[in-house]
């Protein structure tokens, strides 16, 4: 009992404020009625009285109680006045009064009174429901033709996308992203500062509003947001930032998400922050170029393993066809440029790559000599081998150029080119596989002919 009494004493001003508010509200309503303050058949007490009650209550509560009491008197006045005005005929205050009737004016007045009593509710209706419905409607009209024509086509296209977008994207980066503050085995030569990037992820609107209408009460799916795209955008903005500072790596990359859009709630901010640095002598970053590791620490699947192995594979098949001089020449050139690489760029530790290349080339030249012996005993397929030699020359020139370019530029460039080379070699591989069959056929043909020629001589 003592505690109840205590709280009552503590809150006496709050109660006093509410009671005073209600009194002021009713007084104003009474005055409105007896003075006939009517606009277009609608008594202004419906609007004025709750507002007055709320104002008086709030002022008193702030002054004496210290904080707002939440306009309870306004709500009370609003309810009582409306019950009186709408349902009770004028008996005791104003004998001539009739219950209010619905008309355009009264509807607007009702909206205003509701707004005075429940501001948050009306704000929600006007800013979210009305605006949302409007944008939906406009969007529906805009997308109507495409909705009718072919949503099925668009959906079919999405199926054949292959691996998810940001994996490929991260593969093609020439600045490695690292989410830890330390590159092990390497030395950070220079810190360049904070780099950031932001993007807004929204609900996908392209899917067709007709189908969305039917799924209106389903929970959000992860596919509904273009999160991957936004993340990519944020990261690439950050990378642009880093590139403009001249960095060759970004460390401590953090990705953060923040919902925005409030009651509408359909947008996310994706932000990426990191520190741009210049890394020197990163054996780890170098190793990954020579083909041992995956491209970056962000969950790559693809690795560049065995670039040089592929090169040697390609050359094996080449030598198998019966290449005489060109291959070994090329091989020398390649290993030469490989040595060049290691000489020129000792800092960037590409020596692993060049060693691998020259290693591969030794194997190749061995193979070439073997095949040379075999082939030279046989028939001359000079024309054909010249042709092959030309193609090979072109391709390997390109290859050498690529390697040279790569060594001049930074590690990232090298990474990209090595992948390109890999692709080129694969192509070469395929070509020569085709050529091989062709050559074998030709050789057989020529052999047959020679046998025919030889037999009459005997």
């Amino acid at each position, binding site marked *: 009992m003592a505690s109840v009494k205590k709280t009552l004493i503590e809150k006496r001003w709050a109660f006093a404020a509410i009671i005073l508010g209600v009194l002021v509200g009713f007084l104003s309503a009474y005055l409105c009625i007896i003075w006939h303050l009517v606009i277009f058949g609608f008594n202004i007490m419906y609007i004025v009285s709750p507002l007055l009650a709320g104002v008086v209550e709030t002022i008193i509560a702030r002054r004496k109680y210290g904080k707002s009491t939440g306009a309870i008197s306004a709500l009370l006045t609003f309810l009582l006045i409306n019950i009186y005005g709408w349902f009770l005929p004028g008996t005791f205050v104003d004998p001539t009064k009739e219950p209010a009737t619905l008309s355009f004016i009264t509807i607007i007045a009702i909206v205003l009174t509701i707004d005075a009593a429940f501001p948050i509710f009306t704000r929600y209706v006007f800013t*979210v429901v009305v605006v949302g419905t409007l944008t939906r409607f406009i969007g529906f009209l805009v997308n109507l033709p495409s909705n009718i024509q072919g949503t099925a086509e668009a959906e079919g296209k999405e199926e054949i996308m292959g691996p998810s977008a940001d994996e490929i994207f991260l593969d093609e980066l020439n600045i490695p992203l690292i989410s830890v503050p330390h590159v092990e085995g390497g030395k950070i030569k220079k810190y360049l*500062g*904070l780099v950031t990037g932001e993007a807004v992820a*929204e609900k996908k609107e392209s899917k067709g509003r007709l189908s969305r209408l039917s799924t209106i009460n389903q929970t959000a799916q992860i596919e509904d947001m273009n999160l991957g795209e936004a993340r990519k955008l944020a990261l690439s903005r950050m990378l642009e930032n880093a590139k403009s500072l001249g960095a060759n790596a970004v460390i401590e990359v953090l990705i953060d998400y923040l919902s925005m859009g409030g009651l509408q709630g359909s947008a996310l*901010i994706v932000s990426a922050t990191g520190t741009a640095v210049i890394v020197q002598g990163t054996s780890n970053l170098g190793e990954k170029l020579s083909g041992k590791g995956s491209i970056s620490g962000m969950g790559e699947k693809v690795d560049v393993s065995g670039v040089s192995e592929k090169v040697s594979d390609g050359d094996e098949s080449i030598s198998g066809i019966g290449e005489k001089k060109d291959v070994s020449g090329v091989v020398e050139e390649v290993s030469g440029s490989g040595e060049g690489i290691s000489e020129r760029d000792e800092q960037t530790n590409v020596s692993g790559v060049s060693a691998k290349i020259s290693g591969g080339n030794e194997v190749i030249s061995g193979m070439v000599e073997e095949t040379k012996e075999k082939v030279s005993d046989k028939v001359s397929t000079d024309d054909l081998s010249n042709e092959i030699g030309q193609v090979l020359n072109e391709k390997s020139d390109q290859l050498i150029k690529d390697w040279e370019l790569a060594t001049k530029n930074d590690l990232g460039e090298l990474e990209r080119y090595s992948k390109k080379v890999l692709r080129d070699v694969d192509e070469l591989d395929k070509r020569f596989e085709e050529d091989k069959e062709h050559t074998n056929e030709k050789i057989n043909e020529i052999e047959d002919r020679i046998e025919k020629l030889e037999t009459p001589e005997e």
Partner: protein
Amino acid sequence: MLILTTPTIEGKKIVEYYGLVTGDSLLGANLYKDMFSGVRDVVGGRTSKYEEELTNARELAKKSMEEKAKEKGANAVIGTRVAYHNLGGTMGNTIMVTIFGTAVSYQE
């Protein structure tokens, strides 16, 4: 002024810690902007307005943090974090961008 997210500076020595420095800025996209961004969405553009505003807000926060660090006599800020907070509102687009870090001075 060096602003880093890392807790240390490799190869350099931190000679003095000056304590926490912060910077923040508010980003309020108004109703009209919002309505138009909605229309743009529908027509097919991205809400680049928000992104621009975000960048501006972040730069502002960064600048105010830098100034505070400079006042203390620091030549670097380490352990920097950028945080974005939604301050709500009916449209929920009042966003606060805060940057905080430790002001230090380092020597070679």
